[in-house]
């Protein structure tokens, strides 16, 4: 078990190093940030001073060496835009995104499992048809469109919800609702498909021959067996939100990591971009580890 986690961590660490190197050099290709930060009429001396201060005058390789040695001391650099430690900026934003991901995915998981299982129990029935219809619509609707329509209807037209920001509980309703729809549709389909297979398996026949009631047959005997493929998709979808729900965060002005990354890239705030990528990568790594552990927890035949 410990060996398994160690192996995983090593493999992920190697990819992370490659990613950091790639992003460091690629982001430098976008050009010099100086012009973006100083006013148009700034003097040549001021520009030169700005460059000197942030080390943009040194050759790329020297800049990279400095970055790596800082990293080794746990220093992720300073945000050019906010003039405070890049990691602090990133972790603050990541905290928001993490909350958004946890709330959304918890709701999605519970709803998709219940609706999907009930749909699978009576394949082709009215409930199944309605659930399948809405899940397909949900899985295929573009989220930016739903987000905008949501703002137009609930905020502009009916004035029941705020358009953007994070002040109150009500601020969370639209972003969570918009992020909910697609994973819900997708996971519901996976739950349904997996449950249909499991419900036709031999051990379900045994449970019926034992006289087990319908509800425990679905939610005790079948569900745990049907969860394995579902967990993979849940992890996938959670990772997508953790990685930054860029479009949704931007539309709702949500101060999460997706919005931060886009802003930092546009403003060439290199230290923040790099720190954000490292945090995301770590989150994805932990997410996948969690999924593997969930597999072993659900299925006694899987041992690492």
């Amino acid at each position: 078990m410990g060996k398994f986690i160690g192996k995983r961590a090593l493999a992920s660490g190697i990819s992370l190093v490659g990613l950091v190197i790639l992003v460091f050099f690629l982001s430098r290709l976008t050009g010099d940030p100086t012009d973006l930060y100083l006013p148009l009429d700034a003097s040549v001396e001021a520009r030169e001073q700005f460059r000197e201060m942030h080390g943009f005058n040194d050759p790329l390789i020297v800049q990279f060496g400095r970055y790596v040695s800082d990293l080794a001391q746990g220093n992720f650099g300073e945000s050019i835009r906010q003039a405070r430690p890049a990691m602090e900026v990133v972790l603050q934003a990541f905290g928001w995104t993490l909350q958004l991901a946890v709330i959304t995915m918890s709701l999605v998981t519970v709803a998709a499992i219940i609706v999907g299982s009930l749909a699978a129990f009576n394949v082709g029935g009215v409930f199944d048809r309605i659930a399948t219809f809405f899940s397909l619509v949900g899985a295929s609707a573009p989220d930016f469109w739903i987000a905008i329509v949501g703002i137009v209807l609930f905020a502009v037209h009916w004035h029941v919800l705020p358009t953007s920001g994070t002040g109150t509980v009500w601020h969370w309703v639209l972003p969570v609702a918009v992020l909910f729809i697609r994973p819900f549709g997708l996971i519901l389909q996976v739950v349904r498909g997996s449950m249909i297979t499991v419900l036709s398996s031999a051990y379900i026949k045994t449970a019926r021959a034992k006289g087990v009631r319908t509800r425990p047959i679905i939610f005790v005997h079948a569900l745990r067996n049907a969860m394995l493929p579902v967990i993979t998709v849940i992890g996938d979808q959670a990772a997508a939100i953790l990685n930054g729900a860029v479009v949704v965060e931007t539309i709702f002005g949500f101060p999460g990591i997706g919005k931060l990354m886009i802003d930092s890239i546009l403003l060439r705030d290199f230290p923040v971009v790099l720190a954000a990528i490292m945090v995301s990568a770590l989150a994805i790594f932990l997410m996948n580890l969690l999924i593997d552990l969930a597999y072993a927890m659900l299925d006694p035949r899987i041992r690492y």
Partner: protein
Amino acid sequence: MTDHLLEVRDLSVEFHTAAGTVRAVQNVSWHLDRGETLAILGESGSGKSVSALAVMNLIDMPPGRITSGTILLNGRDMLTMTPEERRQINGATIAMIFQDPLAHLNPVYTVGWQIAEMMTTHGQPGDRARARALELLGRVGIPDPDAAMKKYPHEFSGGQRQRLMIAMALACKPDILIADEPTTALDVTVQAQVLALLEELQQETGMGLLLITHDLGVVAEIADRVVVMNAGEIVETGNAAEVYHNPQHPYTRKLIDAAPGKGQMPKERDRSGQPLLQAQKLQKHYGAFHALKGVDLTIMPGETVAVVGESGSGKSTLARAILRLDDPDGGRILYKGSDLMAMPPRDLFRLRRDLQMVFQDPTQSLNPRMTVFKLISEAWEIHPDILPKAQWKDRVAELLVKVGLTPEMAKRYPHQFSGGQRQRIAIARALAMEPKLIVCDEAVSALDVSIQAQVIQLLDGLRREFGLSYLFIAHDLPVVRDFADRVIVMKSGRIVEEGTVRQIFEDPVQPYTRALLAASLDPDPQVQAARRHAREELEQRIPA
């Protein structure tokens, strides 16, 4: 009229499928009383399980539909009961066990939980259910019941899993136990133990036992009365011994005649001259598991050598090693004197056509997306020197006729055939290579007895016609008796005994061989009763 414990009257069940309505059973009537064992005997597709599934309310409706009849439990019609009443009967009054216990036990819950669930479902408190589950595990002979409670189904052997199913089924002390092919997937010695356990438990509890089987031997061993089914109808009912000795219906007669193990044993052959194939000291490891521990084997031209043994004995590994499908780790394989292990790949490729294999399950060994023509002619594509392309069509037709099919079938796909027909196609494919040796790995095990007899006859005829040799891997001793010249008995990766069919069957030396023979079931209830005596004596002499 007194009520029977369970009575099925004029039951008809249909299934509505895309291909039309299938009448699964028609006007089926049988009854079961306390303390007796009724067997429903039939081949695949005979509808033998359908009435039991109807009793358990396990037929999905739709597509299934009960079109007529009644099912009386102590005189009450179950078909008019509410679903909740039916649910309360399942497990508590009528329990059922199935053919493949691994598939029928939930893989993600401990066996202790699954057995206890049977009792908590029917209203017993959890702690008492767990205590009784522990007691039951001991009763059905699971070693170390305390540890077993916390184990999962995959951690047990096949025979133990069926014991777990039995423990679960008997947890609520049901009046009736339905066993659907309970020993079909098990080794003969394990089968004998499981049947003995069922019989013992029946005597203890006085329950009625309904046994669904395709195996005349199982009927002979355990049943009081038998119902013979064919094509959804009951063709004959009666006392098991009477039906065997005096069958009334032609189908019953055909079934009894097809039972293997009654034919003439072949005469001893001259074994001088160069052997066709020789294996010397074959070794094979799978990780830490030592599958072959130095196996020697000689096959003469035109000879059929059978390898028998229980699962895990290494007989299939031996077959695969000889063909170098799985390379052995040590030893030599000589084909007409030249070493297959030391041969360059190109020579080995040419030799491949001489050595062919027919696998157990033709559904899996035939590519479902290839027509029969393609399946058979592919051999000539790979080995172009066998046959010019212009003759492929005629030769495929010829081969199909040879294995008892028709030339028009070449255009069809495997799924359009029955199991027995598919195995014929697999044999035709092997013959296309014009081989010298065909390795049959449990090639007839999955087939119904009447089909099995036909396939054996076919193989025997082909041997005479082409001078083929067979290496015949089987767990079923009677089949071997009719077909093989020599028999090799394997156990735990070693050969324990070897000899002519007559030596092995009439004068076995090793206790293991004798135990195997004693455990194999004879279709004649009288022979079986005598054999059971012999087995019991043997068991007393050598402890398990």
